[in-house]
């Protein structure tokens, strides 16, 4: 069948189909795309609405759900849904929504039970999505509802009742009232307000990546707002650093003085740059050594972060011609871990 004939045939077909329902308008581009079959729709249409619409056949209880939870969920969300390590807390937090540090969980915050099913079905377990069958998801929904004191442990959650379970915080959501916080009257252009008072400084707080400090929770998109506090200066994890060193392995031996593409790194700490025996360094590396560059935690960290740039700094030019063809490590944590590893591994 030629393309033209096919297109005409499809158009005719579309017309025939539309005759059935009086209101249906004709397609403007009938040759583009095709009707989805019921089987196709069923395989993809996984959503569940608050009224229970879309809930697939199946059922489960908290007791059944607990078994699945302990095997497939607890490793990240904690045995009691307590979260940890920034994984979401799933249980508790009642009465905290007005607090300084509110804890928003399924029990304390979520307005609809259907959302639990809808979300677990599509997205959990993290990294193995859509691997659970419907009974398992009903069971998990029941388990999380039970642990949040919303249903009893023998309540069967199913397509029939998921749209009717009442969530305690349901009434506390209201539609967007913005715009808000608008100035009243004429917009001030001159001599507005009193003397300037500084009440906070990000530099003094010193938690910005790449310039210092360590974690405060800036995870606004996925968890509660931030703690304005400075945590202890992080120190690296040598074990993790070992795998970071994979990036260096091709060129350096860590526990030997033998040279490869790059110089041997044994006995690195305290050594002047560009001075390892029998290694032919670049002019710039040797010049940096002559100027006093000695390998320490700090100088190695800065060098691996940006080899050309850092060596350049030593020589007062923008980029040095080091022979080390390595772009640099971006992650601060990786660098700290690497240093911790190098310290152990390069010991004489």
């Amino acid at each position: 069948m030629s393309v033209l004939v096919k297109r005409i045939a499809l158009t005719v077909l579309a017309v025939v189909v539309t005759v059935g329902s009086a209101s249906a308008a004709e397609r403007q581009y009938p040759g583009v795309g095709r009707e989805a079959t019921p089987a196709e729709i069923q395989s993809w249409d996984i959503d569940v609405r608050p009224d229970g619409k879309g809930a697939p056949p199946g059922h489960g209880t908290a007791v059944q759900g607990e078994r699945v939870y302990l095997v497939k969920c607890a490793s990240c969300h904690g045995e009691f849904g307590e979260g940890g390590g920034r994984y979401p807390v799933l249980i508790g937090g009642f009465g905290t929504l007005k607090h300084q540090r509110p804890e928003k969980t399924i029990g304390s915050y979520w307005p609809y039970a259907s959302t639990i099913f809808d979300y677990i079905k599509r997205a959990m377990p993290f990294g193995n999505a859509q691997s659970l069958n419907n009974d398992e998801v009903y069971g998990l929904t029941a388990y999380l509802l039970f642990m949040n004191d919303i249903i009893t442990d023998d309540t069967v959650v199913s397509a029939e009742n998921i749209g009717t379970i009442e969530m305690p915080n349901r009434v506390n959501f209201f539609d967007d009232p913005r715009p808000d916080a608008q100035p009243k009257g004429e917009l001030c252009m001159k001599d507005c307000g009193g003397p300037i008072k500084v009440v906070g400084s990000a530099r003094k707080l010193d938690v910005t990546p790449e310039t210092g400090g360590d974690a405060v929770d800036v995870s606004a998109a996925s968890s509660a707002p931030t703690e304005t506090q400075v945590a202890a200066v992080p120190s690296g994890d040598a074990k993790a650093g070992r795998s970071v060193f994979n990036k260096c392995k091709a060129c350096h031996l860590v526990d030997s003085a033998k040279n490869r593409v790059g110089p041997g790194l044994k006995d690195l700490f305290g050594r002047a740059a560009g001075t390892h025996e029998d290694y032919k360094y670049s002019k710039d590396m040797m010049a940096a050594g002559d100027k006093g560059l000695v390998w320490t935690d700090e100088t190695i960290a800065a060098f691996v972060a940006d080899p050309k740039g850092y060596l350049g700094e030593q020589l007062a030019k923008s980029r040095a011609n080091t022979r080390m063809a390595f772009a640099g490590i971006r992650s601060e944590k990786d660098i700290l871990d690497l240093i911790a590893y190098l310290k152990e591994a390069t010991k004489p």
Partner: protein
Amino acid sequence: MRKKSSNSDINVPENEGLDRRSFLRAGLAGSTALAAGGLAGASGAKAAGLDIPIWSQQLGIDVDALPYGKPSVYESGVVRRSVDWLTATRESSINFTPLYALDGFVTPNGICFERHHGGAAEVDPAQHHLMINGMVDRPLLFSVEDLLRLPRVSRFFFLECAANGGMEWRNAQLNGVQYTHGMVHCVQYTGVPLKLLLEEAGVKPKADWIMVEGGDSAGMNRSIPMAKALDDCIVALFMNGERLRVEQGYPVRLVVPGFEGNMWVKWLRRIEVGDGAWQAREETSKYTDLMPDGRARRFTWEMDCKSVITNPCPENPIPGKGANVLTGLAWSGRGTVTRVDVSMDGGRNWLEARLEGPVMPKCLTRFYLDGWEWDGSEVYLQSRAMDDTGYVQPQMVELQKVRGVNSIYHNNAIQTWHVLKSGEVENVRLG
């Protein structure tokens, strides 16, 4: 961790890229701008003339050495940056657009910020489909090839994460415009109007919502009211002239102009038409705004009018007294930016900035304060934007009065940059 500079007399915040640029700058300006002893010595060594650099003598790189071009190696510090400890995993995480390094209003594709909930899906376009089902006359299935045959529009829009600035509710916290404002980008999106696709399927008269769903492992789903769906949404296939980047939803993403970024579902695989909101996790557990009374706003879609100065800023200290560029970005999800005012004294007195065209609705707008000279004194820089609905960007104290500090999303407060006598710039909060 601080990178230790051997030139300790160069007193600028240190990070990649910045270092390099301030060195360049210092080198160019000789000893006047920064009293950079060691440096000035080095660059001033040839008092009589200028070097003939190697690139003026030798041949450059051949064609095709880089079939897909990259920025100069001297710009290699201009990258998206994230915060390692921010989230439980790197796959559900965010990074930030380096706004400090950009001018104009278009964001280059490779540095548009990322936010994924299950990693950036590497989708094979030959196997990808877009389904439209639910309350329609005929459920449809489009391949990517099909979508590429339909009429297109091309429009510039900004995309901002609702949590942009979410770390700054309580106080000034992150010292860099990349982190305080970098969850925004602006590109030209090209694709099929969503309205056209919905009309192909035939929306039933009672339907008043759609649900859009991603094909990634998060299966990201959001509800959108029908009025918006039929207004200006685009099923996008291209950004800035080329096909979408993987991390921006290749091969198909939804564009929802002016609305929060979470709704711009990437790797779009399905649109269901219905007669109520779905109340998905991303519009209940997340992307609802908790108020001080314990109640929460829902369906807070529009991104309110906002602006920020991108130069100077913490990453771009002022190199010296006299002429300097004062510029920034303004935008509004409700319409078009009509005016931006700039203050040097923390909002006591304001000057009107010049809007650089084109000025388009729901699009980033570049502004400049022409003729600005820095006299070397301490300055508290602010910018305040207005849009064509009459909305005025508020101070944080005004926002906090209404919303408290736990609403996470929709922080569009005026930003203060404190310029120190050294030219360094810091993020401060004024009371």
